[in-house]
Structures are given as structure tokens and as C-alpha cells.
């Protein structure tokens, strides 16, 4: 792998936990499906998932499967390992807007790219990074 391309975080160092309101996101991720919480009444998307729709206070929640495509809203370039004992590598935290879930953003990573090539507004699509406890983390690649 080229040293100057961005990488995913080493999955063995990434941990997540869930609660009853967030677990459907991660269960779908385990199946390789990107989903978002969406109000079952007013249709507004919300992420991270919360117990009430902030627009209409409904608790009726659905979890549509999304296309997994979006655009980079903003990003940073980091070249130091965030984990003690792991050799430095390039990673690019990104804030992504999703094509088919208006009003929400995901915080993720952009992988396999020279940092010089990253642009706000560039098109990206989802991939999956295996992490601890058999979960999978959404990451993105330029498309």
C-alpha cells in the first residue's frame, strides 16, 4: 500500500457501543447496509439516532437503507497515529452529507487517497472497516 495514501483506522483499536436507539444502525452496518434513523411520521432524517424526532417529537422510527453515496462537507488531514504503539499513518476524518438523507451528516474517514486530492464537495461512496466485537464501521472512498 502506498505510504502517501490515507488509510482506515486499524480496526482492532476501534471500539463502539450501542443502546436500543442506536443499535439498528450498527446491526445494518454489520450486514454492509448504510442506514439512517428517519421519523416514521414526518419523514425527517436524524443522526446520531435519538429517542425522539426533534422536528415532531414522534418516537416512531424507521431505518431505510441508503445508497451509501454522498459528498465531502469538510475534512481534516492527520498524519499521526491516534493509538499508542501504532506506527504513524495518514488518515482523513471527513464530514459527509448523504445523497438520499437530507439534513444529516456522518463523521467518518476517507481512505485510499492522496491528501492533496481531497476537495470539499467531492463524491464519495461507503465501504466497511471491520472493528472490534464483529462490528463494522462505515468509511468512504472517492468515486
Amino acid at each position, binding site marked *: 500500500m502506498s505510504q502517501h495514501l490515507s488509510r482506515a483506522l486499524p480496526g482492532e483499536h476501534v471500539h463502539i*457501543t450501542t*443502546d436500543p436507539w442506536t443499535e439498528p444502525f450498527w446491526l445494518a452496518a454489520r450486514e454492509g447496509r448504510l442506514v439512517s434513523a428517519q421519523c416514521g411520521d414526518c419523514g425527517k432524517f436524524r443522526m*446520531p439516532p435519538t429517542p425522539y424526532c426533534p422536528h415532531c417529537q414522534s418516537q416512531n422510527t424507521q431505518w431505510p437503507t441508503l445508497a451509501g453515496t454522498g459528498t465531502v462537507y469538510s475534512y*481534516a*488531514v*492527520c498524519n499521526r497515529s491516534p*493509538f499508542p504503539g501504532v506506527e504513524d499513518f495518514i488518515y482523513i*476524518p471527513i464530514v459527509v452529507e448523504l445523497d438520499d438523507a437530507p439534513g444529516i451528516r456522518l*463523521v467518518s474517514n476517507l481512505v485510499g487517497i492522496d491528501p492533496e486530492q481531497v476537495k470539499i464537495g467531492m463524491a464519495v461512496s461507503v465501504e466497511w472497516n471491520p472493528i472490534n466485537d464483529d462490528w463494522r464501521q462505515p468509511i468512504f472512498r472517492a468515486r
Partner: protein
Amino acid sequence: MTWEHCDKTAIVGVGATPYYVRGQSWPRTINEMIGEAILGACADAGLSVRDIDGFAYYGGAKAGYIDTMDTASIMEMLGIPEVTFTATLTGGGGGSAGAIGLASAAIIAGDAKYVVTVMSLQQRAQRLGTVFGALKPDPENSFLQPSGLVGPGHLMSVLARRHMHLYGTRREAFAEVAINSRLNAMNRPKAIRRTPLTLEEYFASPMLADPLCRLDFCLETDGAVAVITTSTERARDLKQKPVLVTAATHGGRAEWGRAFAWMGMSDEYFASSGHKDVAQRLFAKAGVKPSDIDVALLYDHFTPMVVMQLEDYGFCGKGEGGAFVESGAIRMSGSIPVNPHGGQLSEAYIIGMTHILEGVEQLRGTAINQVADAELALVTGGPASIPVSGLILRRSA
């Protein structure tokens, strides 16, 4: 309409420990440093510590992000006989300026007479710079932490990038915030960083979260600062010339919300300091305009947030912050001197308290880098998750 309680309360005493590079305050302890700051503030005011009857904290009364300040422990340690008010603002460092509003509310309500606001910080077990990376995962931060945004500076780099994208803000503007801070700290005996800083050195500083380099990040330091607020009437009998609390506000809009711990801010708020609404309420409450402010003590944990606060507080237009600081406007000789104490970037980071301290010294006329004839000072807390806060202090006649 101007607030009916403008200038009815006052800061009458300030106290501080020395400032230490992170971890180096040991073998002092958090509580011992709290004691030094409070006793120092009492001596400064001409009060006995036994007169203290209230505590108004911020940040959930956390001492830094790991330890906690506890009123009962402080009473036991210092021999404070009784408290009639003890409360805290929620959130984090965003409430520092607002804690003086909380103290004032207690005094105006008649719930306490002499109220302490204090912060003590010791970064021995965990440094703040990577504090989020060290947190145990919870269901909420599981949507943020796995991106490797391990500290507040990493999170804010994403906001800074957006500001650069939208408005053409340059790294030279962030550099100017750092250089101004350093210039002001150079003659301050307690400042941690006192060596000159050039633009070349700034650009040679390692990138920690591009577009931010190490010199865009504030210091990681230890120490404690305490201030005492009372009624302006009682203040007349004390040792120092009172510094009047004209107005304080805290809070924030849902569009800002958890801010960079969330990244869901509306487009209008994303590349901002989140202070716009708190700022507008503050000026309305105080009955003054940005152009009336003589000195601005802006919470400077990361250089871009000074640029964005200058916009949110109306010292320049939205998106113009970069050009504004690059023009020299925030220097001691500029139109709005910012952080004559060197701020958190060069003097010390005590989560906003040094800005309150400097505001008091400026309006007493005793500051090391005194703004001539300063009458009104702005002090801010945050930018961070809600609440963010602002405070306007006035020199007494």
C-alpha cells in the same frame, strides 16, 4: 431593552496559583490549588474566607475533564461555615464567562452574598489534547470517535477547513492570532510561552490536524484561578475598586447544539464559533455595541475560533474575520486589542478563567499590558457544546 440589573453586581477579588506545564503542578493537588486561588481572591478583596457563602461553577463543576470540584470538600478544607448557594452551568469550558452570570443571579436573588467561581486543572493522568480518544466509547460518541478525531483541536480543524472553503480564510490569519498572543505574553512573568514567534516559525510548526498546526492549539497547563462576585453595594466597602458586571449571557441555539462533537450544525453555524445569539443577547442586555468594547478577552483554545468569535461578536462581518485579524486589528495598537494577557495560546490554559482575571485587571487599570482608559471589557467562554457564554465588565466610576 437594557437589563434592569446592569452593574448591580461586581467582581471584587481575584486569585491564582502559578501556571505549570501540564502535569508539573504535582505534588500539589487539585484541591490545594483551589485553596490557594480562593484564599488569594479573598485577600485581594479584603474578605475572610469565612465570608464566602456561595459557589457558581461551570462545566458541571469538573476540574478539567477528569477531576471534580466539590463544595463540601472545599468548605471542609478552608473552614467555610455555611453556603446558601452552590450551582454549576452545564457543558464544558463554554460556560466560563457565564459562571459570573450565575454568581450574579444568586446575588440578585438574595441567595448568597460572596460567590466564588473557580477552576482548577491538573493534567497528570490524562492530557486534554487527546482526551476524547481516551474516553470509553458510549453510544453517542460511537458516531464520532471512530473517525480518529481524538481531541478538541482535531474536531475544530474540520470547522476551520469549512471557514477557509467558504470565505477564503488563510492560515496567515490563524498565524496572526498566535503571533498576537505571543507578543502580548512576552513581558508576562507567569506566561508559559514568552519567546518571539515569527510567521516562518508558525509555518514550520508540525501539522496536527491539517489545516491546524501545533501553534494553533492552546497550551496544556495546570493551575487554578478563582474570582469573587458580590453586590456592587457591598463592593463599595471592600479593598479593590469594584469591576462591574454589566451583563452576562449563556446558552446557544439547537443549530449549534453539541457542535463539533456532532458536526450536524446548520450550514450557517458550522463555520462559526456558535456565539452569535449569545453575543446579540449580551449586547442588548448590556445596552452597548461592539464598537464600545475597549478590550476583548476571547476564549482562544484554537486560533480559528478567535477569528470566528470576532465575527459572531460583530467586530467584523461574517466571513471577514481572516482579513480583519490580518489587518492588525487585534493587536494592542489595533481597533480591538484581543487577549493582552497572552491568552490560552501563550500564557496559560485554565479553561477560560485567565480571561476573566485579565478583564478585571484591565478595568482596575492594573494590567501588565494595559489598554489605555479601558472602560468596557468583553470576556467569552467556549466555543464548545452548549452553553457558550459572554460577559461584559465595566470600570467603576
